[in-house]
C-alpha cells in the first residue's frame, strides 16, 4: 500500500495531481491519499481530506512506502516505522505555505537513508517510476537524543 499525506492543515494539489495521474497511468490500485481541504478531487486513487491520528498511524505502519509533503509529521513517522518516504516541499511562491521552510527541511533530510526528495512535480514523476526500488532505513527509536532529553529533564528538576 502507498500512503500519501499532505499534513494536518492545507491541501497540496500540485503533489496529489501527480500521484493521481501516475496511479491512473500505471494502474496502481493500492494508493490512499490524505489530501487536505480543497476543491479539486483525485479520480484514480482512494482519498480522504483528513484522517484521525489513529488512522494516520495505522496507514503509515501498514504502508510499503509513504509519499508526503516535507512536513515533520510525515518524515518522523516514516523514520519511526522504518518506511521509505518520498518528500516534496511546499513552496511559498505558489502559496502552498507561508515560507519555504519545507524546502530547507527537504535539503537537510535528503542525505538520510530511506528519505528520497522530489524538489518539484517533475522529479516526483521520476521518483514514482522507481518507487518499488525504494527501501526504508532501520526504524529509529521513539525518543529524542539523550542530550535533548537530559537537557529538558535537568531544567525541569532544577528548582528555581
Amino acid at each position, binding site marked *: 500500500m502507498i500512503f500519501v499525506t499532505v*499534513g*494536518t*492543515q492545507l491541501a497540496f494539489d500540485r503533489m496529489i495531481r501527480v500521484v493521481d495521474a501516475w496511479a491512473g497511468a500505471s494502474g496502481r490500485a493500492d494508493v490512499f491519499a490524505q489530501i487536505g481541504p480543497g476543491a479539486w478531487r483525485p479520480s484514480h486513487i482512494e482519498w480522504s481530506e483528513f484522517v*484521525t*491520528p*489513529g488512522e494516520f498511524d495505522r496507514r503509515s505502519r501498514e504502508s510499503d512506502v509513504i509519499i508526503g509533503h516535507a*512536513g*515533520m*509529521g*510525515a*518524515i*518522523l*513517522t516514516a*523514520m519511526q516505522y522504518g518506511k521509505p518516504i518520498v518528500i516534496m516541499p511546499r513552496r511559498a511562491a505558489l502559496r502552498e505555505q507561508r515560507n519555504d*521552510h*519545507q524546502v*530547507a*527541511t527537504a*535539503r*537537510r533530510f535528503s542525505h538520510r537513508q530511506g528519505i528520497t526528495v522530489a524538489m518539484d512535480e517533475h522529479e516526483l514523476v521520476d521518483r514514482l517510476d522507481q518507487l518499488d526500488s525504494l527501501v526504508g532505513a532501520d526504524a*529509529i527509536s*521513539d*525518543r*529524542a*537524543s*539523550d*542530550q*535533548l*532529553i*537530559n*537537557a*529538558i*529533564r535537568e*531544567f*525541569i528538576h532544577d528548582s*528555581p
Partner: protein
Amino acid sequence: MASGGGHWVQLLRLRPAFEGCDVSYLTTSGGYQRDVVGARVFVVNDASRWNKIGLGVMTMRVAWVLLRERPNVIVTTGAAPGYIALRIGKMMGARTVWIDSIANAEELSMGGRLAGNLGGLWLTQWEHLASEGGPQYAGAVV
C-alpha cells in the same frame, strides 16, 4: 503543549524527559489521547497570528486550561499556540521550555524568536542556529 501534526510527533519523542512528573498535554487536534494513555489531554482551536479572532478564542482557552492545571513547567515544540501557552504560563509563575521545531532549519520560527524573551530554556534543534544571546543547541528529536 504542541500543535497537531509534526509538532505533536516531536513532543512525543521528548516524553522520557517527563518521567516521574505529573504531566498533562495540550494540543490543537482531537484523537491524540491514544498516544498518551492515562494522561490528561486538552484540546484548543488552532490559530496563527494571521487570524485575530481565532487567536483571541485560542488564548482564552489556553488560559483556562493553564488556570485549571497550574503547571510548574511548560514544555512546547510550537507552534503559535505553544508560544501563547508559555506567555500565559510565565505570567502565572511557570518556568518555560521552548524547543523550536526541527522543521525550522534555516531560521527560527516567529514563536521561537519571541520565546527568547521569556527566560527559561530556549532551544533550537540546529547547531548552526544556536548563538550567544540566542537559543542554545542541546540535541534534536532525531
